[in-house]
């Protein structure tokens, strides 16, 4: 798996590492998963001049549920900056996640907020599908244990008739989730996907 970029942030006991992955490699690894199926559906959708798909794909997906990723978010981006991007739909297989209409600038975790704002700001500018493997270490309220969560995330910028990026479709697959002692959480992360 080729890594295009790596970002890491630590604050107190919490930590996040995000690996920006090469799209082709990630697609090869996800060929048989829901993320791969969703990508192939997205690939067949009508495109604007520079290859960005139109936001109508969201309604198509409602009609034709081609895939059920672990977590899907539709984000409104037809506003000023990434701080103002807002949640339109957010659903996890096990229930709802982000509150509707919440803005990225309102995300409670400072680590998560910082990364989300940067990720979406650049994804909107770059106008192409981005794939990241994300490792999170989240503090558990009771003491010396850490919740770890690794997931793979596809970001799809979607445009309106004028070509402006008005939505993001975000689909993720949970790779691993665990609660571990703080000491083992300090280890350097390795990519989980093949």
């Amino acid at each position, binding site marked *: 798996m080729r890594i295009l970029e790596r970002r890491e942030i630590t604050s107190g006991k919490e930590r996040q590492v995000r690996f920006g992955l090469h799209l082709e490699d990630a697609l090869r690894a996800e060929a048989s998963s829901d993320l791969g199926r969703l990508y192939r559906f997205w690939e067949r959708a009508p495109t604007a001049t520079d290859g960005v798909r139109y936001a109508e794909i969201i309604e198509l997906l409602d009609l034709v549920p081609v895939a059920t990723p672990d977590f899907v978010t539709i984000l409104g981006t037809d506003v000023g900056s990434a701080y103002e991007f807002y949640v339109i739909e957010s659903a996890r297989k096990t229930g709802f996640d982000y509150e509707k209409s919440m803005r990225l600038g309102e995300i409670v975790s400072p680590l998560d907020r910082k990364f989300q704002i*940067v990720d979406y700001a650049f994804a909107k500018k770059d106008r192409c599908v981005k794939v990241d493997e994300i490792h999170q270490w989240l503090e558990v309220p009771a003491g010396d244990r850490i919740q770890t969560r690794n997931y793979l995330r596809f970001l799809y910028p979607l445009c309106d008739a004028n070509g402006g990026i008005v939505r993001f479709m975000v689909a993720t697959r949970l790779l691993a989730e665990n609660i571990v002692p703080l000491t083992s959480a300090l280890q350097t992360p390795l990519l989980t996907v093949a």
Partner: protein
Amino acid sequence: MLIDEWGDEWQTRAKYSSEGFFEIEHGTELVDAFNNWPSNDSKNSNLTALLNTRPSIRRCISAVIETGHTEDPTCYIVKEHRNENAESKNFDVRGVAICDLPMNQRHAMLCAIEYNECRNSGQPSFYHIDQRVDELDRAYRRIIIPSKRENGRTTELCVMSRKIMRPSLV
């Protein structure tokens, strides 16, 4: 601590507590300038006039940022800027929003986020930044000070910085 790596470029940005920062910056003009910063009750609201009477502080100031007009940090405006990079000396960035600055956007976006955190907390914040961006190597320590408050909101930030030499830059 934030680490950002892409291609052969990178940046690390470490946020310090005041105690930790004063320990590593002990005795420098940056800490001296911070210690001479006027307390809230004696602060002159006219920063320019204040700085003219305090050259030791003025020397350390790298930027003054206007934050009162918007909730969007990328739209904060650069009021004053001391430009040290030969490549960008021809740009006058006064009056320019953070998102429109002629600089690396990964650096600019993180600056906006850091300014926003300082503005919202209303407390000074302390950073060590080390980076190779746009083929430029630099390392510096920085203090962001909420320099003006109006109606309970921070409307202006003063950024003081000091370049430092890491071994690979010597």
